[in-house]
């Protein structure tokens, strides 16, 4: 299978063709470019190579009304400009599905360009250009230029330093100023003072024709610090864009039936209680509502953690986010989007913001200790020299040398560079980290709480007893199941390994709502579905049946029973064992029934479990643990886990989680294998060790150089060399993390077909 052949094309095609209102949604989320042109950004996670680019662009350009389509391989997005006519928007997603690419709309609010990053890179380029040229001139001054040339060189250096000081320095001045205004101090305060003072004194010295100027020191300081700043930003941005490239689960609107019967697709925020909306099979319920027409089954796993599907008939309450499995439903909205279950979870999450809000990043903690010390040392050397010699100029020169030499150049790089390398290692293992402090927090975790459905289990039903079913019986069942979109049918169809052409041909097939599939072949009636119904008893109450078995019958006589269960996630047992070996306490908090939870708990080897947990209950449990001094790592995927994810000290979610859960989690892992939890923990611990080593290196360097600077022996040459050396040392140390560890890491599994960043 080549990378361009999406594994899930079939299932996606079926989804896409069913989704009503998608074309209206395309129009709704597009951006008006003026002149009747509209722009739509689609996320296509499975673009991997040049052939994919060509096929996506060719498919889109063929669509009527499309003016241009351009793929961005790095972000796995395609930007389509199309001409607006009176008809519906071009059905871009269906066209892409036809070409075999699953895609989803990218929210219009998300800007594809990042102005902050562009600003940082520009500042970095200016600082690099200026500092390199000044360094070149400084070298000639140091190697002994005559007085006249030295004066000229200093003048040119001053002119070159000006853009770096004014343009590139802004970032630091702004941050320092906002800290000072709030009565705080951060790393940027000594940097700003050092840079500005050094520049001012150098200009003064230049006009006094003094032998030394500090232009090189102040600009290369900016250059090095900007490297750290840019890396830090880059890491966070990459993770964010990778997370948003995953499929969105909540619809941005719904198809509403007006009183006169007209169907209209309207935005989520415009839905009012009392409106009647259509939810197609495979769609998620947009706002809370009561079923007013239709009969189907609902998958509540992401909402409540229950693995059992709930039957839905007229009068059933469906919460926002619940997936409609079988047949189209008409719901009467009972709440607006901002009052529905989803919004409730958001409010709980905001209230739950726990460990994270209080957590201060290591670099911030270091700088809050460091910057007062730097200020004090610089001020002391100023007054000390002033008292000893009475020479203002000499004293200020030495004070600036102290400021520059102690400026946390290596310190500013020490943390971001390690985190960038660690984030890269995590990316390679299919784990995305939202921000650097998450790595620090993960290293501190001492207990792990798992959600059950979708986290410890894969959340996808699977046929388990393929071996015991005769091949010809399985073939008939698969032939019937292929035509239904019910998850049990999909599980049976997926359990068939043979050739689709070899399947028996059915004469007629009918899907009976909520019961199963009935087919006729050569005069016999075959039924695949709920045991009671298939074996010919009178149609039983659908609620009493279990999801775990399905029966195939011929004329009422049972041919085979298909056992279907929600399988454990790969590596779940190993991961639990590995985590326990690290000495972490492990628990399960689930919204599911006690029997289901205890079964899974016994299987993975976890003794502590709590079933029937409500979202608020999970939060309270985590709060209680944290109050007793524990640092909790929460791993969960559902909407009901989202508040717990934000309450925990650090949190992880699989890529299949609801978007709100993915946004709440610090880490998102893409592979199916739960081993990612252990891998992330391992990398974060090693990153923590490297950061501490880097701090020791950076501070050790200061301990050696500062006394020399206070004694007044640091020339600009020495300062520049020492500064660069310490930065290079810190970077080299961080890169050690890039190498695989000698032991304790698992070989990364091959990537799944979609959603894998490169």
């Amino acid at each position, binding site marked *: 299978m080549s990378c361009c052949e999406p594994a899930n094309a079939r299932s996606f095609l079926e989804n896409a063709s069913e989704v009503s209102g998608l074309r209206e949604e395309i129009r709704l989320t597009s951006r008006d470019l003026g002149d009747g042109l509209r722009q739509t950004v689609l996320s296509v996670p499975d673009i991997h*190579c*040049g052939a994919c680019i060509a096929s996506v662009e060719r498919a889109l350009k063929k669509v009527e009304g499309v003016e241009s389509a351009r793929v961005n391989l790095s972000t796995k997005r395609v930007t389509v400009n199309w001409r607006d006519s009176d008809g519906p928007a071009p059905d871009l997603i269906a066209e892409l599905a036809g070409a075999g690419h699953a895609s989803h709309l990218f929210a219009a609010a998300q800007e594809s*360009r990042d102005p902050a990053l*562009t600003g940082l890179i520009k500042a970095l380029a200016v600082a690099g250009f200026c500092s*390199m*040229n000044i360094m070149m001139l400084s070298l000639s001054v140091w190697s002994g230029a005559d007085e006249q040339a030295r004066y*000229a060189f200093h003048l040119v250096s001053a002119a070159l330093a000006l853009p770096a000081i004014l343009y590139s320095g802004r970032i630091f001045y702004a941050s320092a100023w906002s800290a000072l205004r709030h009565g705080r101090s951060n790393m940027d305060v000594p940097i700003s003072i050092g840079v500005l003072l050094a520049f001012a004194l150098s200009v003064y010295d230049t006009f006094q024709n003094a032998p030394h100027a500090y232009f090189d020191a102040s600009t290369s300081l900016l250059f090095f610090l900007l490297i750290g700043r840019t890396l830090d930003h880059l890491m966070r941005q990459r993770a964010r864009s990778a997370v948003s490239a995953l499929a969105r689960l909540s619809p941005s609107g719904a198809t509403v039936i007006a009183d006169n019967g007209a169907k209209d697709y309207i935005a989520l925020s415009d839905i009012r209680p009392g409106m009647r909306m259509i939810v197609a099979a495979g769609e998620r319920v947009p706002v809370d509502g009561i079923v007013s027409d239709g009969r189907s089954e609902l998958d509540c796993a992401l909402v409540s953690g229950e693995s059992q599907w709930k039957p839905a008939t007229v009068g059933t309450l469906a919460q926002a986010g619940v997936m409609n499995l079988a047949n189209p439903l008409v719901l009467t909205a009972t709440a607006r989007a901002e009052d529905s279950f989803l919004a409730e979870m958001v409010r709980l999450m905001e209230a739950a913001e726990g460990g994270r809000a209080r957590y201060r990043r290591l670099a911030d903690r270091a700088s809050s200790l460091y910057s007062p010390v730097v200020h004090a040392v610089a001020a002391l050397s100023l007054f000390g020299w002033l008292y000893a010699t009475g020479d203002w100029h000499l004293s200020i020169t030495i004070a600036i040398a102290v400021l520059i030499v102690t400026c946390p150049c290596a310190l500013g790089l020490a943390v971001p560079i390690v985190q960038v390398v660690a984030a890269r290692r995590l990316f390679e293992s299919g784990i995305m980290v939202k921000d650097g402090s998450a790595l620090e927090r993960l290293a501190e975790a001492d207990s792990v709480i798992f959600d059950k459905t979708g986290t410890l289990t894969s959340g996808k039903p699977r046929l388990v007893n393929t071996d015991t079913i005769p091949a010809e019986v399985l073939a008939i069942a698969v032939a019937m199941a292929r035509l239904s979109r019910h998850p049990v049918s999909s599980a049976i169809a997926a359990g068939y390994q043979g050739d689709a052409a070899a399947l028996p041909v059915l004469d007629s097939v009918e899907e009976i709502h909520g019961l199963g599939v009935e087919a006729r072949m050569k005069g016999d009636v075959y039924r695949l579905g709920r045991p009671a119904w298939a074996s010919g008893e009178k149609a039983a109450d659908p609620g009493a049946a279990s999801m775990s078995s399905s029966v195939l019958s011929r004329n009422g006589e049972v041919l085979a029973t298909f056992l279907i269960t929600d399988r454990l996630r790969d590596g779940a047992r190993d991961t639990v064992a590995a985590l326990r070996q690290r000495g972490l306490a492990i628990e399960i908090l689930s919204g599911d029934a006690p029997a289901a939870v205890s079964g899974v708990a016994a299987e993975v080897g976890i003794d502590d479990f709590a079933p029937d947990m409500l979202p608020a209950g999970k939060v309270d449990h985590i709060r209680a643990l944290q109050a007793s001094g524990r640092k909790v790592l929460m791993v969960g995927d559902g909407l009901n886990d989202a508040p717990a994810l934000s309450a925990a000290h650090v949190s992880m979610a699989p890529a299949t989680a609801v978007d709100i859960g993915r946004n709440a989690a610090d880490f998102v892992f893409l592979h199916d294998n739960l081993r990612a939890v252990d891998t992330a923990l391992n990398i974060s611990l090693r990153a923590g060790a490297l950061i501490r080593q880097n701090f020791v290196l950076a501070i050790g360097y200061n301990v050696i150089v500062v006394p020399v600077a206070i004694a007044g022996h640091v020339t600009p040459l020495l300062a520049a060399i020492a500064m660069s050396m310490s930065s290079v040392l810190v970077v080299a140390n961080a890169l050690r993390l890039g190498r695989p560890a000698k032991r304790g890491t698992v070989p990364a599994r091959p990537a799944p077909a979609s959603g894998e960043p490169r």
Partner: protein
Amino acid sequence: MSYLVVLIPITILMGAIGLAAFFWSLRSGQYEDLNGAAERVLMDEDSE
């Protein structure tokens, strides 16, 4: 001395041109899709 008056401005000018070229390429979106550019160079022009 006099040669420096000519050479140094030339050096800086050349550097500044490089910097300007970088800004131009940044602005025209050449760094938006580095992976895609690597693949596109191998693609045939659309034959349709």
